[in-house]
């Protein structure tokens, strides 16, 4: 049964249905979108139950010839990493739809369009993680930009059009560099394998000369570093996250940016092992810079715009993820993959709650809040838990992943791991300062009558908080899925001295 195709098609069909509704039927559009995305999430979880955790290769494989002249296949399949990221997307989509029930009102276009775009985006997210054909991956990678572009530019706030264009151009630029590398791979595969192909498993068999490999690696890596985003390719993110609606930001930072780190593991490491090893130390340095750069900017911003703050913390977190990937240890890579999932949930929680705070107070400045703990206790608590997870408090989900990343890094680069550990201290600062300013202290004038979470918001945030706590105590559930793939990926790198 073509699980992945069906999963991918459902939201697309749903999107068409939502789009065809009459403009006035706003509530129906929302309900339909919520229903479909929940259905897809359930279907995805059902699919996951038949996933075999013991093996490292692709499962649920589908492969059909699409454009034989170019060796392009419609090829889908997931390993542990891809499966978890798809599930992350499937769970977050209905959460976002429910959480952002009234977010589309100030938009340039109708409300139904917003939800139709969200569903299209869900299809793209499934496709990009499930593609086993590089061409298909590239297609989803680029096509994904379009709904996001409209979501930011059409429904955001402030300088939304400019932010949307900036986002689009950065990503497009990266995508085109990747395209140049893809063309290179395609041609080399034609020379070496007899027939040109885009199949990831086939392409791993290529033996490239050093210079070609470095160039092709860079094409992919820069595209992914922009997406991730890694310093110095990050400048689009704060603007985009600030301008986008909170729901869009959740999907942008929670899921879409993971395409960058996912791609580094799936393509950079597996297709260009030598170039990865050669440039690994440089990338480790970039990751460390990202960790500190993001953290310092977040601290700097801790009295300023709350959405910018969260996006800076993400830059820091992505630094940890790339650190773990390019440490080339199984632990480090498992930690990074786990980090991607956990960061998805904790950032989602932060953004959604920040969005509700902003909607209630009509301000996105941390300084305008204060004493929320007293006025809106539930909102304050959920924000606090999400924040603690973000700073990797033991018992919450991010802790395990950060720990694994640092341990995994320590084995190979002790100094880098020690420096990275200092980043955790900064994390405490950039989370606790805004928590203190916004949630505690005296109730600032204007905040007295803020309402606490309503039922819809409670239902939306509950699964996210539950998962943050659950994965904090039972990370093994996820690690069992992740480990075989991570071990195989690091073993394939063939690093001397490793057994």
């Amino acid at each position, binding site marked *: 049964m073509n699980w992945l195709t069906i999963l991918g098609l459902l939201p697309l069909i749903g999107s068409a249905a939502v789009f065809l509704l009459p403009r006035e039927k706003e509530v129906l559009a929302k309900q339909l979108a919520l229903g479909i995305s929940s259905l897809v999430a359930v279907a995805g979880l059902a699919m996951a139950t038949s996933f075999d955790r013991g093996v490292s290769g692709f499962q649920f494989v589908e492969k059909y010839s699409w454009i034989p*002249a*170019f060796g392009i296949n419609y090829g889908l399949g997931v390993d542990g990493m891809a499966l978890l990221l798809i599930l992350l997307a499937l769970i977050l989509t209905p959460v976002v739809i429910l959480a952002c029930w009234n977010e589309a009102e100030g938009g340039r276009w109708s409300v139904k369009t917003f939800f139709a775009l969200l569903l299209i985006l869900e299809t793209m997210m499934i496709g990009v993680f499930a593609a086993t054909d590089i061409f298909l991956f590239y297609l989803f990678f*680029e096509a994904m930009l379009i709904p996001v572009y409209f979501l930011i530019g059409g429904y955001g706030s402030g300088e939304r059009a400019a932010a949307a*264009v900036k986002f689009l151009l950065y990503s497009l630029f990266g995508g*085109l560099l990747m*395209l140049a590398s893809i*063309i*290179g791979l395609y*041609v080399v595969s034609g020379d070496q394998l007899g027939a040109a192909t885009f199949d990831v498993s086939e392409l791993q068999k290529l033996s490239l000369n050093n210079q070609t490999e470095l160039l092709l690696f860079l094409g992919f890596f820069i595209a992914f570093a922009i997406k991730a985003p890694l310093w110095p390719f990050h400048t689009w993110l704060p603007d985009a996250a600030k301008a986008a609606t909170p729901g869009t930001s959740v999907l942008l930072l929670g899921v879409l940016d993971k395409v960058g780190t996912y791609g580094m593991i799936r393509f950079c490491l597996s297709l260009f092992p030598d170039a990865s090893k050669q440039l690994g130390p440089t990338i480790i340095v970039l990751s460390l810079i990202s960790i500190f750069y993001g953290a310092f900017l977040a601290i700097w911003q801790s009295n300023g715009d709350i959405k910018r703050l969260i996006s800076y913390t993400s830059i820091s977190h992505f630094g940890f993820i790339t650190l773990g990937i390019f440490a080339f240890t199984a632990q480090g890579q498992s930690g990074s993959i786990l980090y991607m999932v956990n960061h998805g949930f904790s950032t989602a929680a932060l953004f959604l709650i920040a969005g509700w705070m902003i909607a209630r107070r009509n301000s996105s400045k941390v300084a305008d809040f204060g004493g929320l703990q007293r006025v809106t206790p539930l909102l304050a608590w959920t924000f606090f838990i999400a924040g603690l997870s973000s700073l990797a408090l033991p018992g919450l989900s991010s802790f395990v992943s950060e720990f694994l990343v640092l341990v995994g890094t320590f084995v190979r680069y002790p100094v880098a791991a020690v420096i990275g550990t200092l980043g955790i201290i900064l994390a405490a600062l950039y989370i606790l300062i805004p928590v203190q300013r916004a949630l505690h202290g005296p109730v600032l004038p204007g905040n007295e009558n803020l309402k606490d979470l309503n039922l819809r918001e409670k239902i939306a945030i509950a699964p996210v908080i539950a998962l943050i706590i659950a994965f904090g105590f039972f990370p093994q559930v996820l690690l069992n899925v992740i480990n075989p793939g991570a071990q195989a990926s690091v073993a394939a790198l063939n690093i001397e001295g490793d057994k």
Partner: protein
Amino acid sequence: MPAPKIEYAVLAPVLILLAAGVIAVLVEAFVSRKYRYVIQTTLSFSAIGLGILSVALNKDVSGRFAEGSVAVDGVSVVLQGTILVFSLLGLLLIAERGFQSFTAQASTLPGSADEQRALASGLQQTEVFPLTLFAIGGALLFPAANDLITLFVALEVLSLPLYLMAGLSQRRRLLSQEAALKYFLLGAFSSAFFLFGSAFLYGYAGTTTFEGIKVQISTAPGNDLFLLVGLATLTVGLLFKVSAAPFHSWTPDVYQGAPTPITAFMAAVTKVAAFGAFLRIFYATIGGMVWTWRPIIIVVSILTMAIGTIVAIAQKDVKRVLAYSAIAHSGFLLTGIVAFNKSGVEATLLYLATYGFTTLGTFAIVTLVRDAGGEVTDLNRWSGLGKRSPLIAGIFTLFLLALAGIPLTSGFVGKFAIFSSAYESGNISVVIAGVLASAIAAFFYIRIVVLMYFNDPQEDGTSVMIPSPMTAIAIGVCALATLILGIFPQPVINVIDSLAIFVAG
């Protein structure tokens, strides 16, 4: 001396179109004005239809005909087919009478009382039809020409009508006439270069036929002064036709000044014809000198892409943006010449097919956006089009994305094919330049999309005309082709791959 042997069946496509052109002139002269439009359109469409049919019948032909002056082979069949399909679509736009793109009477002075009278009386001359038919005939012959004289004659038969057609615009007639004059003067200049080069090549090879030149190159040393000067000047003439830098400066003015249906026709048909000739000369004739010409074409290609994309950013007129985009696309197409391998031929043919549909579609939509005075080409006044007319703005967006080479549109397939052929030949510099240029180009295409969707409409009387069936069909076909070639290009690629073989030398 025996009479020359002419293979009428094989040459039928060219002959049909030229004969139809002659008949159309007679119709202009002898038929009363009332019936002319109907007769001319019927005549033109049936000529193109017959042309397509006779091209299809030639699909297995491969050889040299008309005493060796015309080569009909798979490549020329593909090119002629493409030219005729684009001509058909272009003619649909030219024949549109729902709104007037053409001046009522071209011979009247702009702003004169005669012009007013011609407009008021609803005169609408039909001389554009014979001109178009001649241009198509020339375009069909150009990529099939197999000696320098035929090539030159084809070039002139293609170009002369276009010079006139460029000056027929109803709105801003002075600008249109200026464009026509500029086109004519520069075109005449390039023709002179072309002829000069031909003379040198004749001096070198002692013959004007392509095989003769090819044989001479393979036997004699390749650094003969006559050969090099001849090739250089011949290439200048060709580069002018495809609007490659640094011979591109006529393009924006002519594209802007000419009536938009003519611009559409010119952009699609001339490009196919000129690149067809490029292929035949560079691949099939002077391929032996690839090490001499390749570095030059690489430089020209990169320069063309750079100028086309960078200057386009600063443009405020939609037709000028599209003109610079056409220049940039010439740069991309030249990478297919640089490739100099079998996949280079196939990729160039595919690219021409994809580009033609898209560019015809974009200009067709430009004809629809109007105010009381005529077409509105000022980009600022296109703002908010997405709100005013979602369907047209949506289709226009599709075309722009295809021009930008976004996946799932035909533009991507073409770019992918042509860049991978260049990469295959080891010329990675043009591929990198091409990819970077595509990134810059994406910027100005997307800027137009932003303008249409994210800005509010201006209340200045700009509106989108409801297209008559003819323009609607043209737009529909172009949009469909852009999508199908983007998603399921395989059948078309199969046809091109099976045919793209030059007649054996």
